[in-house]
């Protein structure tokens, strides 16, 4: 009855108001609400992301600073006087606390030098020097990033990781979309049982399937190559098939049927009707797989242990977590660098989520 077309309609336009004052009032209200919501989200994020602060701070520490357990990457301050280095300490005097370098410690009196005015010469101070607190100043080890970049052969590993992730995303998207469409739309006998079998593949703990899986890939001669990390993803997995099926099932069927009447076969319907409606979830699935592959550590380690030139960054990071030489700062520095590509990808992908892909009903 209405004239609505069966095409994608973006976020609805704000309701039309006739009077300017009400428009202004609505704008002001909307603005305030937006500000409050955003402030609330930022507060949540402050708490939620606080461990990142710890991560960033750790990445900027030296090994000594990590062992000392200081909150910030700070090092004790020193002052060079006549070719020698002396510790700077807080000295209580009648003019308040002074930051002086301890040159000559003594039992009852000690000699200090004022770094701000070294030409004044040594200052004598009465008191126990052992009780004096050393002055620390911020000492950020930006160099950690350069060292980590060098040690993990970052460009090479970045390329490996990106290649494994992108190929896997392609395989996952194609295979899972096909399978999910099959589950969502076709009257296959025993479909529910098949679906439970699909889900059951992610229930059994990996610990006990590991050995036979490894033996299988070894028998195929795939160890030492990327194949075990890529090929299985071209055959669908329960996580993404389930998600896509759930999403496809919420899509109205009228459009399928309209296309069917127009003579489209099921494959064409998938391409022209289902997929255009499912961009947000397809992007979500692509992102999941990308992030999964980006961080998957265990399988690449298992299959690429003797092929270091093929390893992804997740395995590279592990060299800073050696049993005997742990280097948390380099580990975190590498992790932060490795975060950059997925973060950029995520930011870009959000465009799809912003559009509000919503298909409304057909002609009524």
């Amino acid at each position: 009855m209405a004239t609505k077309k069966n095409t994608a309609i973006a976020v609805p336009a704000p309701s039309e108001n006739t009077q300017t004052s009400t428009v202004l009032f609505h704008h002001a209200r909307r603005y305030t609400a937006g500000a409050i919501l955003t402030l609330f989200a930022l507060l949540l994020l402050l708490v939620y992301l606080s461990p990142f602060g710890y991560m960033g701070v750790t990445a900027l520490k030296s090994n000594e600073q990590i062992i000392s357990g200081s909150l910030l990457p700070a090092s004790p301050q020193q002052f060079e006087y006549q070719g020698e280095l002396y510790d700077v300490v807080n000295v209580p005097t009648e003019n308040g606390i002074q930051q002086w370098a301890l040159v000559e410690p003594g039992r009852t009196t000690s000699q200090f030098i004022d770094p701000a005015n070294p030409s004044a010469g040594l200052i004598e101070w009465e008191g126990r020097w052992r009780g004096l607190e050393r002055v620390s100043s911020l000492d950020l080890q930006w160099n950690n990033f350069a060292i980590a970049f060098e040690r993990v052969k970052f460009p090479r590993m970045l390329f490996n990781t990106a290649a494994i992730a992108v190929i896997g995303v392609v395989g996952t998207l194609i295979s899972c979309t096909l399978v999910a469409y099959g589950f969502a739309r076709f009257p296959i006998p025993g479909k529910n049982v098949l679906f439970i079998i699909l889900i059951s593949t992610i229930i059994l703990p990996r610990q006990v399937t590991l050995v036979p899986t490894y033996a299988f890939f070894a028998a195929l001669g795939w160890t030492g190559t990327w194949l075990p990390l890529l090929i299985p993803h071209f055959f669908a997995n329960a996580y993404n098939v389930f998600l896509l099926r759930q999403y496809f099932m919420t899509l109205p069927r009228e459009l399928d049927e309209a296309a069917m009447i127009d003579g489209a076969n099921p494959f064409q319907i998938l391409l022209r009707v289902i997929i255009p409606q499912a961009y947000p979830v397809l992007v979500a699935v692509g992102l999941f797989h990308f992030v999964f592959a980006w961080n998957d550590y265990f399988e690449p380690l298992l299959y690429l242990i003797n092929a270091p030139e093929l390893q992804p960054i997740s395995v590279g990071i592990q060299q800073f977590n050696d049993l005997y030489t742990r280097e948390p700062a380099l580990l975190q520095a590498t992790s932060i660098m490795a975060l950059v590509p997925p973060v950029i990808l995520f930011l870009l992908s959000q465009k799809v989520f912003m559009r509000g892909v919503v298909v409304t009903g057909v002609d009524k």
Partner: protein
Amino acid sequence: MTATAKSNDLRVGNTSTTKNYDLRRRRILWGWLFLSPWIVGFFLFYFIPMISSLVFSFTNFDLSRPNEIEFVGLRNWGSLFADPNVGASLLNTLKYGLVALPLSVIIPILIATLLNDKRLWGKQLVRTLFYLPFMVPTVASAFIWAGYLNPETGWLNRFFSTIGITLPNWMYDPQAIYFGLFFISLWGIGNSILIMIAGMQTVPSELYEAARVDGAPPLTIFRRITLPMISPVIFYNVVLTTIALFRFFDAPFMLKGSTGNPAGSTLFYNIYVYRVAFPQQSMGYGSTLAWLLFVIALIVTIAIFLVARRFVYYANEEN
């Protein structure tokens, strides 16, 4: 008008199409064709390892003596009853899971609602920031959390002690460690949030418009429109979170390895499976333990599927 009219249309459409027998047979064939990648993949990559591990459960397979495998009949399965760690680790898993499951489902819905609000500024950035922790490699987050939750030098306890609140020792208190583990899991909800946002994007905007015209308050709109419309993805999250909780491993392993410390509180079932299969190298009994978990989790999963039939709303279903 819109919602009811739509579902009526559908029912008519469905019956008229499925009546056609020949068409139905062709559709079944197409269905098998679409399923075929998974069916091939299942037999290639899942079936063999699964059956192998089932076979292991009837053997004395020891990783240190892989050449001396012998069938021992039901001995491993009998051992389950005499093993106190089975009950204890199942109980830990249930105790943690019953609290973590509802929270892990509800919190992403709430955050997704916030992140999907049209009035929110800088949505792209805010969403990315919420997703960010999910992208941190596990090795890195293990370090971050062990440091962050440290009772003396960790940021959390330090911050609260400056405002005069003493927080528990997350790492060594058998009760508090569950909260610590939950904080770590919360750090990985970026995925669930994203799924919820994607789900909210499918809700036809005309439904919201209609509700607004009727003057429905926001909470009613959320309860009557948003929740039912995204129930398929909520259901997805419930199933996957349940399975993940049965297999709970990464967070406790990060903090405590397979020791189960403090006081056996982190001896979750899957941690125990790992301990038996690897440090103790008893793959035969480890597989038995894993298959017990498989049976329990599968029954629970099927139960969730059956219950969900009454609560999950699909725009249409082919019968």
